[in-house]
């Protein structure tokens, strides 16, 4: 009985401290939010499909290496790197801006005007297995940007195909 009481006390204190700290932390998150599922569940106009064509009818489209390369070489819009600042500094696609998904509030305000003016946005992260570019695309879509390309191969595929890489901070 004593153990059970202690477990309950620890749980209650953890909930109170966790929720209180989260409310005042600069990195606090909305516990009721669910940025992890495909927003198609919540918004009927959010669709994701894989497309290598130039025409974009859907707000968020997955693109392959060729389309990403074409986008970068033709300066078709803004390129965003969703990885961490450390990964970005080690190497990124030339011309890409850092918009780390985990520090989105730090970077988004400075880029907001450029992103609003840009017709299309290309986002990428580390490799085909990372999901940060999709999470960032979801956030951008929720912020009103409706033409987003997600380059799924990410920086690893770009680099392994000997395409240009820039090092250092933006």
């Amino acid at each position, binding site marked *: 009985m004593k153990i059970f009481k202690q*477990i309950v006390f620890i749980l209650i204190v953890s909930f109170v401290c*966790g929720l209180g700290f989260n409310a005042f932390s600069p990195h606090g*998150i909305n516990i009721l939010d*669910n940025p992890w599922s495909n927003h198609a569940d919540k918004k009927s106009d959010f669709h994701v499909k894989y497309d290598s064509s130039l025409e974009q009818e859907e707000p968020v489209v997955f693109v392959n290496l060729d389309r990403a390369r074409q986008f970068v070489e033709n300066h078709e819009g803004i390129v965003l790197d969703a990885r961490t600042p450390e990964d970005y500094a080690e190497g990124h696609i030339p011309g890409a801006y850092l918009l780390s998904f985990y520090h989105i509030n730090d970077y988004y305000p400075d880029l907001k005007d450029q992103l609003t003016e840009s017709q299309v946005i290309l986002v990428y992260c580390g490799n085909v297995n990372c999901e940060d570019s999709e999470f960032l695309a979801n956030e951008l879509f929720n912020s009103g940007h409706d033409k987003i390309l997600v380059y799924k191969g990410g920086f690893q595929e770009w680099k392994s195909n000997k395409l240009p890489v820039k090092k250092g901070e933006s």
Partner: protein
Amino acid sequence: MKRLLLHPLMVWVCRLGVAAVLLYAGIQKAWMPLEFARLLKEYHILPDHVLNLTAVVLPWVEIICGLCFLSGLWLMGAAVFLTSMNTAFVFAIAYRAWLIMSAANTGFFDVSFDCGCGFGVVYIPAKILENLVLAATGLLILLSRCKNRGHDQY
């Protein structure tokens, strides 16, 4: 052996060691809950809608348990948490390692990933062993408390 394991000094050292691990890991995760939530998602065990809440509360369970081990308050409850959490982590990490092994066609002793434990990318066999040791330490502390119940000397 039993006397050595349950010796007050031994239990004290275990409590301090466990407290240090829990406080460090808990603070790392509590500071960046979004990143922790993302790592939790990669386990594909919890439903998406509870990931954020878990990422906010779970690090504080570790921090509070760490403080309990330091202070001696609610020690048995903290020991139960330590053992049960680390046992659950062992299964979760083993499950994710199995998923990676299946996808990448690699062996168990080649698997490393960021398990969301607060220590970055770790070598998984060593991490599982570490969690088993932590779970056993929780049991040891619990046993020592049961043994000394009524005449607490710590």
